[in-house]
């Protein structure tokens, strides 16, 4: 038995919410891959807990996106029944989990970005978005702090940990550009007071990044001209594999419940 994929509408509010909600969902999926594989038990728990927070934030945003979309879908249908091109997270989120250094650099970059985003979304013209952000902002500050501790500890650690951090930074750096790229959806959301244009977050994000990298004894890599297109649904080769695992159960057993 096959199941029909769903599509969402093109309204800027829905697209904007999915960009953020899918970021939380897809990163939660990647981080949760550490469950049972963390280098130490405490870190295994920490990563699983952060994945849970992100998943909870994604649930709120997808539920609200489905409501604004007005087609009668729910959070589960949006999470499990869209095709790849309908997911709007930046490519950064879907990159394979890599080693522990890679995971911590990405977590720090994304937690900082989300924290700045949630702080702005707390003042969204949409009351539900503001309420979701009001909760998430507190969680994100713990995530940021935790990842920052690791970036410093690994960057300023052994020869091997520092080398791996340099490699992780070099790989990830070009993918950060998409977090601050401007486009029409962004501008429409900003104009309505729905949410900030992501480009407005760049200066603060860079300040945090420089502070922590300096403490870690790491140098930011050279800027790249590459900008991912995940926000328009054009993903890397990794996304399909991730979705195959994420969606398997609902595709194989339509409507299956926990």
């Amino acid at each position: 038995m096959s199941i029909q994929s769903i599509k969402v509408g093109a309204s800027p509010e829905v697209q904007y919410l999915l960009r953020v909600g899918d970021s939380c969902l897809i990163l939660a999926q990647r981080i949760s891959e550490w469950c049972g594989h963390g280098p130490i038990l405490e870190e295994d728990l920490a990563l699983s807990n952060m994945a849970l927070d992100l998943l909870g934030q994604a649930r709120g945003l997808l539920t609200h996106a489905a409501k604004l979309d007005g087609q009668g879908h729910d959070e589960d249908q949006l999470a499990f029944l869209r095709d790849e091109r309908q997911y709007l997270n930046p490519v950064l989120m879907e990159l394979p989990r890599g080693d522990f250094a890679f995971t911590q650099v990405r977590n720090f970059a994304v937690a900082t970005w989300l924290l700045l985003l949630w702080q702005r979304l707390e003042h969204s013209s949409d009351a539900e978005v503001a309420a979701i952000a009001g909760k998430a902002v507190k969680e994100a500050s713990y995530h940021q702090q935790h990842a920052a501790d690791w970036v410093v500890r690994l960057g300023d650690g052994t020869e091997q940990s520092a080398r791996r951090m340099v490699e992780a930074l070099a790989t990830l750096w070009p993918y950060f550009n998409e977090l601050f790229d401007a486009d029409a959806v962004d501008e429409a959301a900003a104009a309505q007071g729905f949410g900030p244009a992501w480009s407005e977050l760049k200066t603060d994000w860079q300040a945090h990044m420089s502070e922590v990298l300096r403490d870690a004894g790491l140098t930011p890599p050279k800027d790249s001209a590459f900008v991912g297109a995940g926000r328009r649904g054009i993903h890397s080769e990794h996304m399909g594999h991730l979705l195959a695992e994420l969606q398997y159960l609902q595709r194989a057993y339509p409507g299956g419940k926990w």
Partner: protein
Amino acid sequence: MNELRSNACQRLEAAWEVLRQIPDPEVPVITLAELGIVRDLRETAGGLEVVLTPTYSGCPATELIQDDVRLALAAFGEIKITMQRAPAWTTDWISDEGRAKLKAYGIAPPGPVNLAQGAPIRLVHRASLTKLACPRCGSENTEKLSAFGSTACKALYRCMACREPFEYFKPL
């Protein structure tokens, strides 16, 4: 009419009495009310409406809590549960009794929420963290092992004086 009103009052009071006894599924030593997540209880046409607020966005106990509340209040008719996010739950809403019970249970209760939280972000360096007293022996010679413990709401610490590990309910 007065009698009707007072009946309704008594019904709500009785429901509150039941509601106040429901333990938190993850930290059963304190109740949902002491945890500060029961926001309101209202009469509806066919029963009652309970307004709850989630602790963390991804708290896996949320559904279980709703089921517990529904089950406990079943005698009062149809129970509608409304999850209300704003204003966001804060550990400052944990009652004094709740804090005392947490401490007696071996979980260090949360300190006051930093008012600056949410304002310009300030990264805190590990060494400058305030010292936390061990809930067992009271010593302040303790250290943080991990910001995340067995649940998202707790951090893991150990006491260097009595050598016991303990959890800290993080201010949120």
